[in-house]
């Protein structure tokens, strides 16, 4: 596949007017740079996914297993019986169009099948044709169609052009949630081995090794020890993290992305500095070393299988409760699914902050607290000494992650934290934040490199709102509480709004955090000079 080279000024020429030809008469065209490579056979075999084989999306023949139509229709029947959401959302859409221009992929691509209503109709048309009387009799007049290879390809192409961000669901008068329909669509596609490598790879790695990146236990330890060294350089304080330690009070779980690449690593260092300052009795786990859950982008069962490690490890280590790092879909799963799948966590205690004594009533059965809730409580109770001016070189805006805003509602906590650690904070336009926030464009396992056009198109509305505050206030840092954001928005910013960096909220916290016994800080976590401290010290570029 040739490299994606289209320039932003070309890519932003978007036509939102749909074509004349009816969508049902327009067969799917699988375009380069808009899709991900298929899953590898061995990745699917590791977790026992069916119909693993070599196939290529661009080929005419997808080598579908015999009787695949039956497999899909029986799968649909089963899902309709298992999920009221699915059953209901297949019936009640009135096609009012309120969702049409709310999807980041539609705004960024103009492809009408990216309007949430139409993406859902791709599935509904097959539902009507096979499960409703009117559809069986009236066919196309009733908006029904048969399940053909072309329809299946269309499903694959467009259900992997949806990041399950739920923005459409906010605007729908019946709360129809395209995320639910995409989840069902992907579940069905998985029955035929039609997964993508960028999801199946991390799933297999997470299943066997405990995290998406496939970091083995000793690698996790050595990675964190590198952070220890950097933190010592920065502050003169040596942290001694513990791994798989039985009897710790708290198990800390964060997405493995935070251990892997900048700027996520800065966030991980931020957590460690905060915990050090608090003297928190916590442990990392190498077995439950993943907060995120790419299984969630395959099947419900796979998501549950991966998620099981968190409670299992908490039980084995005998901790009291679990603290979770900054991540988007991780928190959708922890907040709305974990306890149902793998609970009840009756071997844990209701979370209480050991510093402030605050009881986290909102997490009393799941027993897992979001780190921003934890930190906001610390700040409110005056437990942290913060020097905001250390972030004065940053003009910060905040990107709400889809999942934490629309699948949880954690909106004020991060803003409270940021406002207490930064002097310069500016909100993006109101229709692009909070419950109306835009996806980074690369969620649900679509953060590969071969689908870069899709990612940049999907990231366009978010980036455009950042550009607004960049131009107006000189914003140069996009804060967030999501590991996927840290990885993907960096690329989107470089493409659409050069000059804006991306940072986890706890990176900003750690910059401002005045630690007991620290040496005079001249560098921020990125080992760049702090404001007013430029030239005081030789700066190493080797981060």
């Amino acid at each position, binding site marked *: 596949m040739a490299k994606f080279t289209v320039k932003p000024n070309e890519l932003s020429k978007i036509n939102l007017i749909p074509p004349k030809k009816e969508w049902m008469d327009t067969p799917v065209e699988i375009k380069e740079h808009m899709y991900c490579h298929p899953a590898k056979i061995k990745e699917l075999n590791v977790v026992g996914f069916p119909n693993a084989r070599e196939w290529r999306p661009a080929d005419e023949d997808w080598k579908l297993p015999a009787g695949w139509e039956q497999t899909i229709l029986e799968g649909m029947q089963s899902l309709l019986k298992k999920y009221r959401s699915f059953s209901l959302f297949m019936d009640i859409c009135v096609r009012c169009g309120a969702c049409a221009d709310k999807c980041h992929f539609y705004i960024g691509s103009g492809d009408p099948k990216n309007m949430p209503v139409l993406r859902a109709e791709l599935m509904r048309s097959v539902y009507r044709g096979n499960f409703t009387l009117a559809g069986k009799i009236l066919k196309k007049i009733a908006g029904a169609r048969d399940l053909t290879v072309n329809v299946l390809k269309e499903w694959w192409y467009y259900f992997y052009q949806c990041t399950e961000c739920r923005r459409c669901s*906010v605007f729908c008068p019946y709360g129809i*949630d395209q995320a639910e329909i995409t989840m069902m669509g992907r579940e069905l596609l998985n029955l035929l081995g039609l997964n993508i490598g960028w999801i199946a790879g991390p799933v297999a790695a997470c299943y066997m090794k405990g995290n998406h990146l496939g970091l083995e236990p*000793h690698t996790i330890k050595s990675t964190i020890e590198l952070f220890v060294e950097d933190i010592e350089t920065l502050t003169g304080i040596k942290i001694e993290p513990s791994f798989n330690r039985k009897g710790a009070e708290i198990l800390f779980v964060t997405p493995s992305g935070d251990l892997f690449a900048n700027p996520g690593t800065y966030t991980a260092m931020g957590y460690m500095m905060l915990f050090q300052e608090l003297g928190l009795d916590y442990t990392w786990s190498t077995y439950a070393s993943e907060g995120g859950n790419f299984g969630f982008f395959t099947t419900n069962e796979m998501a549950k299988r991966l998620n099981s490690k968190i409670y299992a490890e908490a039980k084995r280590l005998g901790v009291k409760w679990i603290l979770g790092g900054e991540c988007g879909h991780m928190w959708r799963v922890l907040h709305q699914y974990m306890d149902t799948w793998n609970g009840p966590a009756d071997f844990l205690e209701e979370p209480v902050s050991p510093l402030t004594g605050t009881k986290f009533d909102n997490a009393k059965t799941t027993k897992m607290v979001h780190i921003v809730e934890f930190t906001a409580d610390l700040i409110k109770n005056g437990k942290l000494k913060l020097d905001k001016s250390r972030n004065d070189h940053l003009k910060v805006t905040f990107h709400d992650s889809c999942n934490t805003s629309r699948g949880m509602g954690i909106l004020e906590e991060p803003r409270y934290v940021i406002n207490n650690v930064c002097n310069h904070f500016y909100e993006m336009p109101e229709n692009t934040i909070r419950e109306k926030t835009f996806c980074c464009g690369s969620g649900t396992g679509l953060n590969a490199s071969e689908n870069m056009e899709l990612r940049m198109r999907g990231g366009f509305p978010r980036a455009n709102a950042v550009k607004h505050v960049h131009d107006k206030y000189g914003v140069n840092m996009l804060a967030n509480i999501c590991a996927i954001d840290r990885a993907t928005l960096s690329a989107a910013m470089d493409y659409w709004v050069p000059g804006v960096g991306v940072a986890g909220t706890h990176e900003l916290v750690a910059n401002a955090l005045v630690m007991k016994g620290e040496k005079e800080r001249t560098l921020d976590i990125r080992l760049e000079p702090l404001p007013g401290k430029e030239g005081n010290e030789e700066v190493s570029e080797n981060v």
Partner: protein
Amino acid sequence: MKTLLPFFAVITLILLVVAGVQFANLNFLFGVIIPYAALAIFTAGIIYRVVKWASSPVPFCIPTTCGQQKSLPWIKQSKLENPSNLAGVIGRMALEVFCFRSLFRNIKTELRHGPKVTYGSDKWLWLAGLAFHWSFLIILIRHFRFFSIKVPLVVHVIESLDSFMQIGVPLLYMTDVVLLAAATYLFIRRVTIPQVRYISLAADFFPLFLILGIACTGVMMRYFTKVALVSVKELAMGLVSFNPVIPVGIGVIFYIHLFLISVLFAYFPFSKLVHMPGVFLSPTRNMINNSRMVRHVNPWNYPVHVHTYEEYENDFREKMKMAEIPVDKE
């Protein structure tokens, strides 16, 4: 095609009545049998739908949260947009059902030079939708004057409110005008907004034409070609008392009105119109966002194969020991 087909379908329905009543003298069929059948199909169909939806469980607690969660006591929770208890959900659903809260949020996304994406307020769909549904409901309630000997008080009150502008004789009901205007707007936006036209199916136009047909015949009967109201009431009372009679001298236009209503009722459970009962069952709106406070139980939750810690340690024991990570088995 998707516009014309439903249009001519409604025209055909009308011609059917004209033929049946004017020429074939099938008044009993159109005045009694079909209305009964339609009501039976409507009732049975709606029950079937709702039971079918309700028989699928809600395995996970998946509200779409549209505001601040309940977390720390000093952070102001958005109790209606992100409810943490039943009262909040009732409030949220009431806002949704009575005020179309979610549609009120609607914004129009536009791409401008720059490129700059802008989001303008767009309340027309909300306004038209609200006007359409409320006037429909009020008109429906007004019609109860035909179904009881003594006109109920609530109908009187609604009638006088609806006609308070005191225009013309007979008094003009505002809802008649509003319903026609709103339905016309909903039709016009369906054909003029390119995206909405693109997503529309024949099944989106059919109920609109049907309702416009019902409204037009109703308006004609009230304000223009008068029908014998006493006879209409006689027929209606016959229907509700299961003592059906066909009074003579009711104009064919009444039969058209009644037939289109019958078609609407019979069509209802098999169409998108089931959004009416459906909205109440929508899990993204009617659930409490308390999944970390109260465990949500999935009735079909089943044990799955997992990669246990023991298996993991077996894979990595030597590496773990080398790295001085504690292990369970030496």
